[in-house]
């Protein structure tokens, strides 16, 4: 497993190839690899976005990413998983997150990568602040992600 928080621009495919070369290249039990890459768009909620700051909670973020991938390994019987996530200053087209899973059969890898992304979106402590050119704003989560046991209005 690989979990990494990265504070400068990275090449997600190269990172994937490097990891695969080291850990997985010669594993003939792998029949399926599913990869998701999230990249920064130059628009959000109808506005142009010039750049973005991505903040995280060191320690807790890594812990949750590790738990999320371990849960996917168990639930979907995948062979291995990887999550790499940017923090810091990002520009449009910059990679934000790459998630990869490896399994014997395609169903498991597809489902695991999707599940990791969905869990990451609601559990992993990252926060985005956008510069729209007219000022900064904190990104709001999608409506479906707004409630958890520990969310409270004050």
């Amino acid at each position: 497993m690989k979990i990494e928080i990265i504070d400068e621009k990275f090449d997600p495919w190269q990172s994937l190839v490097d990891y695969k070369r080291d850990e997985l290249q010669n594993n003939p039990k792998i029949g399926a690899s599913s990869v998701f890459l999230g990249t920064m768009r130059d628009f959000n909620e109808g506005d142009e976005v010039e750049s973005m700051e991505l903040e995280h909670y060191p320690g807790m973020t890594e812990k949750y990413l590790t738990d999320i991938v371990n849960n996917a390994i168990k639930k979907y019987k995948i062979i291995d998983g990887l999550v790499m996530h940017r923090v810091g200053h990002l520009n449009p087209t910059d990679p934000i997150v790459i998630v990869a899973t490896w399994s014997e059969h395609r169903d498991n890898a597809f489902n695991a990568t999707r599940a990791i992304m969905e869990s990451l979106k609601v559990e992993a402590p990252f926060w985005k602040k956008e510069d729209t050119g007219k000022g900064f704003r904190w990104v709001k989560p999608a409506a479906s992600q707004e409630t958890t046991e520990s969310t409270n209005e004050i």
Partner: protein
Amino acid sequence: MGKVMKLYIKYFASVRDMMGKDSEVIDIDTNLTVFGLWETLTLNLKSDMKVMFAVNHEYVGKDFKLKHGDEIAFFPPVTGG
């Protein structure tokens, strides 16, 4: 009045902006829940901000009881990925 405990508090993102600081260490009465602590800290603030609670890097519900030495974090719903 119970025993005094030390708490390490962190604020992130829009919660940090509202609090005007990113962390503080406080000594406070025992028998406090995480929501009780939040109410104490925001007594003079008006806000409808949604806030999430984490203690020692784990999400907890509002009734979670704090103990001496805990690291408590307050932050808005997460927006990674």
